[in-house]
């Protein structure tokens, strides 16, 4: 069992950080609940791996505490934590057989004989490695090696959480699906906390119940996949999740009205005047911006229409600002002139990138 709590955690690789720019990880508080399937999503260099290494104990954070079930583990070495980690590149001890690889973490912890054997066979069975048990680690395929890396984590009876650091990067695309479903099945079967680091939104959204989006060393949103999609808490989340990403347009917002490039549009919620020189933007996903015949809504100029198979996406310009919109199936576009209809409930207001809560009705 492990409920992992991060208290006021921050990390800087510099000895004397002068300002926020020196932090690989900006101060954060977060709780990973026992048994959760989490994805840690963000672009390369956003601090995902740093956070993971702090949880597993490979790195001691420069500030803050890490608590497992209320016990302070911040300074404790990796060996003393009930956590396993799977790395981007599979780690397999070449000179050992698959069996010995799986037995390695147990033998290192002083287990011998039948305890080891039973456990190794159980895990090998779970991962479909039984036929390979007597083969050397060398010469196995990347996905088999990655399964062994994972198996060395699962085999330990004490493990309460498994951390994955972009584990499918070197796996063939058709095997990625298989391994990912395997992970899902393991998560359901074993009641383990799993934290899965990735920069691939599909991987994150299909694996996790809760997605933690990181940007520039900070957590920008934590939520279910549908929340991330429908209510991005930060324009970065809007951009990063969804394909194409959310349209973000500079706007003036007052009450239930936003003005974009000289055109007014209605909002579902009321907003106070946002002062203090903040950069005000509205964000709306292409899925909630519908192209319509000219005159029906905001006037736009159609630049291009991409047929993505399931949907058609139009690249349009609204008063010179580029955005993407969905083309309804029934609409046939002739010429450049068209208009745009927003779903008011799905138009969000951002100040300096952060979501501004509106007052409902």
């Amino acid at each position: 069992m492990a409920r992992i709590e991060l208290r006021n955690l921050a990390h800087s690789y510099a000895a004397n950080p002068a300002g926020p720019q020196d932090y690989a990880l900006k101060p954060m508080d977060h709780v990973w609940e026992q048994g959760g399937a989490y994805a840690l999503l963000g672009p390369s260099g956003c601090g995902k791996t740093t956070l993971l290494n702090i949880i597993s104990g490979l790195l001691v954070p420069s500030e803050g505490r890490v608590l497992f079930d209320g016990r302070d583990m911040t300074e404790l070495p990796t060996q003393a934590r009930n956590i396993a980690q799977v790395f981007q590149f599979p780690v397999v001890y070449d000179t050992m057989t698959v069996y010995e690889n799986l037995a390695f973490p147990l033998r290192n912890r002083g287990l011998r004989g039948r305890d080891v054997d039973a456990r190794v066979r159980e895990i090998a069975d779970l991962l479909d490695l039984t036929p390979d048990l007597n083969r050397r680690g060398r010469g196995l395929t990347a996905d088999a090696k990655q399964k062994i890396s994972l198996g060395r984590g699962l085999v330990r009876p004490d493990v309460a959480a498994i951390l994955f650091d972009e584990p499918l990067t070197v796996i063939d695309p058709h095997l990625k699906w298989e391994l990912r479903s395997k992970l899902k099945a393991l998560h359901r079967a074993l009641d383990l906390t799993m934290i899965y680091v990735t920069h691939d939104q599909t991987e994150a959204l299909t694996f996790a119940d809760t997605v933690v989006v990181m940007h520039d060393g900070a957590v920008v949103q934590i939520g279910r996949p549908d929340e991330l999609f429908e209510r991005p808490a930060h324009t970065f989340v809007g951009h990063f999740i969804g394909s194409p990403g959310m349209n973000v347009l500079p706007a003036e917002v007052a009450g239930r009205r936003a003005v974009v490039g000289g055109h007014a549009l209605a909002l579902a919620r009321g907003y106070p005047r946002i002062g203090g020189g903040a950069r005000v933007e509205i964000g709306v996903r292409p899925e909630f911006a519908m192209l319509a015949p000219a005159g029906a809504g905001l006037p736009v100029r159609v630049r291009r229409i991409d047929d993505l198979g399931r949907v058609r996406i139009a690249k349009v310009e609204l008063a010179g600002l580029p955005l993407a919109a969905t083309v309804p199936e029934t609409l046939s576009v002739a010429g450049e002139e068209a208009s745009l209809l927003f779903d008011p409930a799905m138009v969000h207001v951002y100040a300096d990138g952060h979501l501004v809560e509106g007052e409902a009705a």
Partner: protein
Amino acid sequence: MDKPVNQGAWLLVLPVLLIVAFSAIVPLMTVVNYSVQDTFGNNQFFWNGIGWYQELLDPTTDLGGRFFDALWRNLLFSALILAIEVPLGIAVALSMPREGWRVAATLVLMALPLLIPWNVVGTIWQIFAREDIGLLGWAVNRLGIPYNYTADPLSAWVTIIAMDVWHWTSLVALLCYAGLRSIPDAFYQAARIDGASRWAIFRNIQLPKMHRVLLIAVLLRFMDSFMIYTEPFVVTGGGPGNSTTFVSIDLVKLALGQFDLGKAAALSIVYNLIILAVCWVFYTVMTRMDSGRN
């Protein structure tokens, strides 16, 4: 369809053939030629067949006795320095820094002994170990340990072994260090998560990665130490008595001191064949061990 045959291509190989013949094959054949003849000077040669070889390989003769004594000394010397330099080199490589400015500093310091000309190394130790003016010899004697490499065979052996270790451990260490550097960090991190002890990490991660470079290190050190000449010649001149007379030193005495060209040539050929044979055995055994792991 037959491939076109162009005999003119032989011409392209000819220059290499000529150079190799000029630099290696002809000189070697000259040695073979000397080894089956005897001479009494005046450039007059007499056919002796395999006589010199028979004498050389028979320990009861004067020549054979000398040869086998020197050969055992040589083998003992090689065994001792391998037994010291390989573990020591691994230990040094393991404790070398892995990042930062210290890496460059360490590498330069380590490479220093390798850059010194061999007779200079001999001269340094010849002086360093002297009991009257040498720092080492003087200090050891002041500690109450009798030490004099010009009179005592044990002192002489200790001196040349210490000198060889000082000179060549860096090579083993640098080779091992290169092997260690090729291990990705993830292996160490995974090992920590697996709860591996320091010894388990060495045994299962570091040693397998060093295996190939160690093969090269052992081969190089064996060949070099088995052919050693310059350093012991400068330090002890083969003495006291014959206690540090290795095969190469004896060979020079035979060829240039006594001018026994026939005997010296036969000795050269046998010496060469021994080195080749031992290297082949080392190589075969170690590559077998390697493939046996698969």
